Every structure is written in C-alpha cells, then in structure tokens.
C-alpha cells in the first residue's frame, strides 16, 4: 500500500520549467493523499511566476489505458505546457512519463505502508522476501518488522521491550517469543536458517517484461 507526501519546494522549484500542467491523482485519496497541501503548492507556483496551463484531478494514473485517454482529453492544457507536474505515487508518475510526449515531473515522495490490498494499513507487513519464515516465528514476520530484519533472534539491544532504533516500536522478537511460548513452540526457533537469501525476493531482477 502506497502513500504520498509532498516534496519540499527547494527540491522542485529549481528544476521545473516555467509553464506546467498540474495533474493530481486521487486514486489513493482514501488511503492518504494531501490534497490541500498539493493545491497549496500549485498556488505557490503561480505566486512565484510559473504559468499553470491547467489543473486536473484524475484517479488511478497507474492504469495506462485510463491515463492515455485522459491525456488526450486534456488537450491544450497539456500541449500548451512545457512539462507535466504529477502529484501521485511513483507508479502513476512513471505511467504518465511513458505516455506523455513532454517532460514529466513529480511533486511527491512515495512511502509504503504495511498491508497490501484495500485501503487500511495493517500492523502487519510482508516484504515478499521469497523465503518465508512465518512457520517458525509464530506467524509474525521479523524480516518486515524487526528494524534490522534479523531472522535468527533478537539483537539484544531492546530496552524494556522497545527497539533500540526507535523507542516507539516494540521489539518484534520479544513478541515472537511470547507467542511461541504460549503455543509451546519455542524450540522452533532453532530450526531457522540464519542466513537470508536476498536474491529470492529481489524485485529488481524480476521486473523485466
């Protein structure tokens, strides 16, 4: 699940051409989309002398068939601009960039939230590492939830049950141990292969068409 946050002005204003068309993607608005902040940024662009040839709200820019149609409908708003400024996740920006015949810029950084489908993040996450240890860790994933992604037990740095990386976060290994103890399965921990095979879940290698 993805959420977007607006980039700081100084990262964007210096590289943006003067005449831009602005496109907001509301597809993930129900998850999280800072529409007010996005509009405020567009207003600042105008104040700073940028020409905004048009502002449109779309959704699901990540669907190429929809986006192709929309770009054609926008007509002059797009063709009159030097560049398109997109407020969306990285997928949406990449789709627009492939389909548009002019430079495409993004105003957002994308953050992933735990949980896959639907709109509500779960507390539980899966990194698709391709080497699932959940059968031995009481159904709680240390790869996704331990700050160090350790698979063979706690690092020892936890204080009062809290992770040493961030005190707001519980040490996931202590929670794993609690659940396994409750189920009388603590011995399962001895069966875990201590070395993680990073190649198995590498999405960069799988992204070829």
């Amino acid at each position, binding site marked *: 699940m993805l959420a977007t946050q607006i980039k700081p002005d100084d990262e964007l204003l210096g590289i943006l051409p003067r005449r831009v068309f602005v496109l907001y993607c509301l*597809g993930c608005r129900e998850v999280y989309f800072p529409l007010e902040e996005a509009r405020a940024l567009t207003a600042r662009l105008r104040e700073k002398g940028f020409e905004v040839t048009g502002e449109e709200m779309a959704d699901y820019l990540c669907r190429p068939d929809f986006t192709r149609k929309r770009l054609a409908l926008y007509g002059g708003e797009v063709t009159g601009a030097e560049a398109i400024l997109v407020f969306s996740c990285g997928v949406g920006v990449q789709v627009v960039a492939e389909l548009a015949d002019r*430079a495409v810029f993004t105003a957002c950084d994308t953050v992933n939230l735990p949980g896959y*489908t639907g*709109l509500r993040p779960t507390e539980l996450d899966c990194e698709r590492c391709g080497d699932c240890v959940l059968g031995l860790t009481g159904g709680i994933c240390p790869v996704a939830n331990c700050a160090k992604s350790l698979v063979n037990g706690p690092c020892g740095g936890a204080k009062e049950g809290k992770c040493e990386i961030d005190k707001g976060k519980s040490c996931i290994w202590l929670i794993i141990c609690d659940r396994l103890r409750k189920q009388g399965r603590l011995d399962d921990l001895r069966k875990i292969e201590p070395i993680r095979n990073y190649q*198995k879940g*590498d999405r960069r290698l799988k992204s070829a068409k």
Partner: protein
Amino acid sequence: MELAVKAQGEIGGLLEGASRVAVIACKLCFKQFERDMSEEVGQVKAALAESGKEVVAELDQDFLCNLNSTGKAMAKLDLSGVDAVVTCCCGVGTQVVASLTDKPVIPAANTVGGTSYEGFEPVESKLCMACAQCVLNQTGGICPVAYCAKSLLNGPCGGAKNGKCEVNKEKECAWLVIYDRLKKTGRVQAMMGETRLRDHNRPTWKQRDKLSRQVAETRDLNFYGGVYPVEHKELTEQRPIEVLPAPALAVVPMIQHIGAPCRPTVRVGDAVKLGQLIGDTEGYVSAPIHSPVSGRVVAIEKRPHPVVGTDVEAVVIENDGLDTLDPSCTPCEAPQALSGDEIVEIVQARGLVGLGGAMFPTHVKLKPHKRVDTLIVNGCECEPFLTADHRVMVERADAVVRGMRLVAKAIGVSRCIIGIEDNKPDAAEAVRAAAGADAEVVVIHTKYPQGAERMLVKRLTGRQVPLGGLPLDVGIVVSNVSTCYAVYEAVCRGLPLTRRVITVSGLDVARPGNYEVRVGTPIREVLARACDRAPDALLSDRVIRMGGPMMGLAQSSIDAPVVKGTSGLTVLPQAEIEPDDQRRCVRCGRCVAVCPMELEPHLLWYYAVREDWETLKKLGVLDCIECGCCEYICASKLPLVSLFKRAKLAVRKLPQEK
C-alpha cells in the same frame, strides 16, 4: 502478487507433530478472477497428503489481509480439532490468520511478489519501491531504484552489454533507457551534477507509523468502510434559501412515494387550488398528492419521471399565478393540544414522505408497530454538493425542532437525538440553540455514507440494526431534518407537501444555491434559473443528476419534474473514463475495504455478470444499500451499482425458500 509453494519436505518439517490441519487459502490480489490459485492449493494439499497430514477444515477467502472480513470468516470455521493451520497466501495474510487463532500457523508458500502491487495493471512493469526520496524528476520518469539491478542513482555501472544488464541479460539497462528518454525531451542535463546517494534510512519507521496511524484512524471511524469524496459544499453552503417562482405549468406525477401509486382525483378542465388533493389511493403505504399551484388541469397523461425511469401518469396544471389556497389548508391554532394519533392523521392527509430521498410515507413511520424509545433526526447530509438540509437547519431551526417535537409525540418517545456532520458547525449551533433541552445534538465525523440509517443508528446509539431489518427493530425511528420541517408546515401551518428546498450546484451552474421550489416544477425551469447555459445544451454534454454525485440518478430528460424526494440537482462533467462492464476486475480489494455493509462487491460483480442469482442471494446482495462507495473507488471503473440494482430485482423474484 505471486506465490511459490514450498517443497514438500519443508512443509512436512514445519508440521512435525501435527496430524490434523486446516488449509486457509487466499485468491490473492491483482489477479484475474479466472486465475483462482487452485493449482497452488492443489500442490499444498498434495504435499500435505504426502506427509501424512489430514485436512479437516478448509477456507477459501478473498483478501485474507482484510482483518474485518477474515475475522468474520474465521469465526465460522471450527478449528477445535486442528493441530495446525496451513496457509496458502502472502505474508500479510498469514500474519492476519496467525493473529486470529492460537493454533500454530504454517505458511505453505513463499511470497515472491510480481512486478506490481502498487500499480493496478499486473502486465505493466511499473514498479515503485516507495523509497520516500523520489528521483523521477532527474531520470525522465523511469525509476532506477526499481529497475537498475544495483539501484544506482547516478548513472549506469558500465557493465551493460548490448544495452542489456550484466546481472540479467533479459533485462534492459535501466540507465540506458533513462538516457534515451531524457535525450528525447532534451533534458540530458538532468543526469549531471553531484553524485546522488540513497538514504536507506527513509522512509523512517516513525514516518510510516505516523501515516499508518493517521490512515487507520480515519478509515474505520464510526463505521467500517466508507469514503471521503471531495465535497464541493463550499459552492452553496453559505447561500441562503431563495424562493423560486412557481412554474407556469406544473407536472405532478402520481408516483411520489414508495408504495401504491395514486389515482388522479381531478379531471382535465377542473379548476384546482393550491394544496387541493389531486391524487389519492386506498393503499396504506402511500401518500396523497396535492396541487402545488392554483389553476386549471390541462392534461392527465404519461410524463417523464425523474426516479422511476419510465413515463408515469401525471396531472399537468396550468398555473393561474394567484396561489389561491385550498380551504382545507388551515393553520392549527394549538398544535401542542393535538394527540399523537391526530398528528399522524394530519401528516397522512397532507401527503408527507421522507425527504431524504427514499420517499417512504411518513405516517407509516409515525405509527410504529414495535416499541420505540428514541427518535433520531438525520442532519448528516453526507452526499457531496448537497446543502439543502444544511440551510434548512441554519435558517429554519425553530421549525425543524417544532416538527421534531411533533414527530416525537406521534411515536410516543421523549428521547430525541439530532445527528449532524462536523462539516456544518453553524447548523449544529443553530439547532442546538433551538432545541434546548429537548434534544441531544451530536456532531459526527464527516464520512460518506454516515447519513445512511444503519450507520447513523450505530454511531448515535451503539445499536446494530439487524441485516435486512429496520431501525424500528432496535426501537428507533429515523427522520430527516427536512421531513421534520415538513411536519411542522403540515401540522402547524396546515400546508400539504407541495414545495421543498433543493440544492442546485455543479459545473456550469452560474448561480449555485439552495432554492425552495414547488413540487412539479420541471427540471428545465430550475436549471434555467440557475444556469446561464441553455438546459438542453447541458443535457448534451454534462450529466444532470437528481440528488448528489454518489446516489443521485442521472436524468435522461429535463422535462421530468422535481418530486417530493428531490434533494438537489447536480450538474457534473461527463466521466472521463466511462464505467464499462467489459473491463475486468483486478481484485485490488478496495471495494471490500469501503463497503459500509461489509459485503464483498467484487464477488457480487463476478456473479451478477454471470447472472448467478442464487449465489448472489447467499452473498447478501439484498443488504446492499446502493450507496455507491464501491463504484466510486473501483480501480477498473466497473458499473457496479447499476448491476447490483438489477441483481437485487432478480434475487427478489427468486422463489422463496420454505
């Protein structure tokens, strides 16, 4: 999303000591419906059989990662005789299942992910690693974090041969593709500059945790699901109610309520007065219809109807402009002296129906056949654009509260709660001042569809209306604020329901606002007052909805009149992407996440397309309230609501089970 089933030896090893197992499988997201995972589940079962395990329980569930629906499904599953639970799903699903049972949970598959999960089209290789430091501005909109095997940020590694990556010869070198794209748009300079380093600390746990919490808090607030559409209420919410002149020709359809249609009680050529009875029926679930103007009946014929969709018998009255009041419309000197039954009689005689849109005859509601202890007055008005109820509350709070007291007396309750969404604080203030100690005014978080009875009752009283039931089943009557106002008008001022306040708003509406119009005013005339463009031109290139954008009905004719249940007219742009039932569902799971009735709309769609009415009945299609949340969120833009409406009609026609 992709799975790779673990080797039989590994599954057997994980299940050491367990002999009886349950198998829980997910059909996974971003997959075609036809790809049902039976192959993977088959492999898992074969591995279990090979290891001598007995499968004693099974569950197929879509979106195991959805805690709400999975929790409900697991509650029905008997796991008492089971030693372990085996899952065939992604890591999130396994963890959700593990959080719902004390039994050991063993995943039988590794989650390897496809190229998509963020995007909605699994065939396209567009991937975002959500690194929280987007570099697409420098790379021509192609992500090197996701597509360079080494995630380099400052150019190619130099190892590519013939344009192919040295790590995987099948793959293009992402940086060469980036270079080509930049060259095409004359932006090669963007690649230059300082060496860029990736900050692997981003997104920080704090950042993700904060966002997650923020989302989780607003998502299920007050009720499961729901959506937050852009409201556009600012267009009209500060516009005082303006009275529109009565139409020259009033078209009054004989169907303006749920129940038996009325028969005209006048004939062509008759002179009628304002408020005179012109349509009536014997049926109890029905409401009489009165003339909205004074004049002469010029026709009784079939005319377009805004809700029914086909032409419906209507009494057409030529307005003489005098508004001569019918002698039956006499104000009540002492409304406080009326008994409950007398109030109900007046309400029935004056033709009141619920003004929220359902047009249920009010007098039927006021004669509950079950014990009632609370009256809820619905001031949510959760539809985007509409502000008519809002203005009625602000400007006519006293009358609303007096109407509420009459309703409370009629149904015999002393406890009244008025629920108002927090996007209209001025309405809450006005109503609170008017109601004093007579009613509790509760300000509710704004989320669509908070105004639906079931959600409102739950939020205000904590009571759960049973599926297929009414608020009455839990001792509650719900009435809309405008209906309360109409009760006041009917009882105290003696006026039948012949006019109401509607919102006219949207694109090309030059004078958006809240207008008090006569029932029977053709849409054409209302639009002509509010818009500069000709109403016929609007019909050709805009969508005119009676009601709001979520539940409003698109009009095919502007000759249809405003009826008692009309809450507004919204002019919307034509959809850039038309709903199309030929597209396929990508199983993103969003409809399941927003359905306030906690149904599984993607499954309803699947079976409705195949006209499998029996299965639809089992899946609870009759519980659908047609709120439109699923269609609003649908990533494939499927025409879900119209299909469900058709499915409901078909399911109701099925022979009843004995």
